[in-house]
């Protein structure tokens, strides 16, 4: 496995996988929060679109990969698109929930003090919804990881998933195990890093909850 990591081809595979994962996760989070804010505040729009959202969410994300392959071919865009779509729904739905659950009192406070539109968004709505949004992103990250591997196993030749499958098909058992273990390590690292990020953003929330438990 160590020798494997020395070869440049292998590094390219890892790089390609991780770049896809990060890019898609970032795009999905951004779009999910943006759409979630819009749908969470506009009742009518969400009433219109929610059935569709719940239908698409119900489809296992991996099952979408063949559709994208047939539409876009085997290029890297296909993989990014598939991962993004998979990661979009959890964060989208949790953002909608988070925005809706906004406290009525804080809403009145914002009105009485005539907070501007952007102050309300960035100082009230988003922070209040942040705990839910970040839980959604956590689920999104896992979905993104699964679809990252799946998308590489379907007709791709680059990426960790592709290499691991190829190793299995050519009976390079050691390489296969190396791939699987690496995937495990990356999966672990990704959730670990995200958790650090979450703890940093939600310091107030985590501390407040601890406080509550002590009382």
């Amino acid at each position, binding site marked *: 496995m160590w020798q494997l990591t020395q070869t440049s081809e292998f590094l390219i595979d890892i790089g390609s996988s991780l770049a896809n994962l990060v890019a898609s996760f970032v795009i999905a989070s951004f779009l999910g929060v943006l759409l979630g804010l819009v749908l969470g505040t506009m009742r009518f729009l969400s009433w219109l679109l929610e059935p569709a959202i719940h239908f698409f969410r119900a489809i296992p994300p991996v099952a979408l990969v063949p559709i994208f392959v047939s539409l876009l071919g085997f290029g890297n865009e296909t993989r990014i698109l598939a991962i993004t779509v998979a990661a979009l729904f959890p964060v989208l739905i949790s953002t909608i929930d988070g925005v809706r659950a906004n406290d009525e009192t804080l809403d009145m*406070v914002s009105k009485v003090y005539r907070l501007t539109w952007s102050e309300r968004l960035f100082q009230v709505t988003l922070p209040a919804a942040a705990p839910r949004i970040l839980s959604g992103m956590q689920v999104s990250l896992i979905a993104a990881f699964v679809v990252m591997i799946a998308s590489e196993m379907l007709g791709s030749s680059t990426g960790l998933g592709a290499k691991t499958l190829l190793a299995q098909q050519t009976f390079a058992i050691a390489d296969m195990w190396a791939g699987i273990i690496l995937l495990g390590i990356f999966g672990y690292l990704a959730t670990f890093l995200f958790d650090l990020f979450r703890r940093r953003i939600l310091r107030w929330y985590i501390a407040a909850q601890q*406080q509550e438990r002590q009382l």
Partner: protein
Amino acid sequence: MTHIHTSTTAPVIDRPVRLEVSALKKSYTTKKGDVPVIEDLTFDLRQGEIACIVGPSGIGKTTLLKCLAGLQPITSGQAMIDGNVIDGPPEELALVFQEYTRSLMPWLSVEHNVKLPLKHLHLPAEERRQRVTSSLEAVGMGDAAQKYPWQLSGGMQQRVAIARAVAYRPEVLIMDEPFASVDAQTRFELEDLCLRIREQFDMTILVVTHDIDESVYLSNRVIVLGQRPAKVTEIITVDFEQPRDQLTTRALPQFAELRSKVFELIRKAG
């Protein structure tokens, strides 16, 4: 800013009217037709006056405050602040809510909670800082600027909420049962804080309370609401000397007299 120290015994009757409520009506529209909550409410508040609204529970006191704060539309009649009709949250008004645990932003420090409403007022940075510090000091929370709301006790959180309102420098400060959920000792402290703030910032303060003693202790006038839909039963003038004191003022014979009068009116109304 307004540090006009009025003589403590000056009758408020000579001062300009800040809040004027005339023939205010509020009803909710339901499927079964309109349900009136407030019927024909008329009173006014003069600068530097503290008035308390008391009445049986469920009479629509909170609804009234929401109407005055521009959070709910008035059905008919009108409310004016400084001569301007209230048809949305007026900038001359601040509101302190009963639920102190939910009215501060837990993700902002005390200082930033107080500062948040000031941002769009386009004050010079120096004045903004000064307002935050002075109002936190006025409520006795000068040392807690860097703390977070959830690190504070209930009474302290309510102090911060009051500081936030004070820093906003409203003409009229409205409080919705502000001391209802704190312990008795804290309650006395907050009542005196309320009197001090009126003195220091020359604010007009309207307090909704269900505590009869509190209403007599705080007020220049007690507005007793009665019946459903709500109407003003009587407006009682309280003319004890200022400054008031928790021990001596409450021990006055007139205090007991007024207290029983208010109590009787409420009982009759309920």
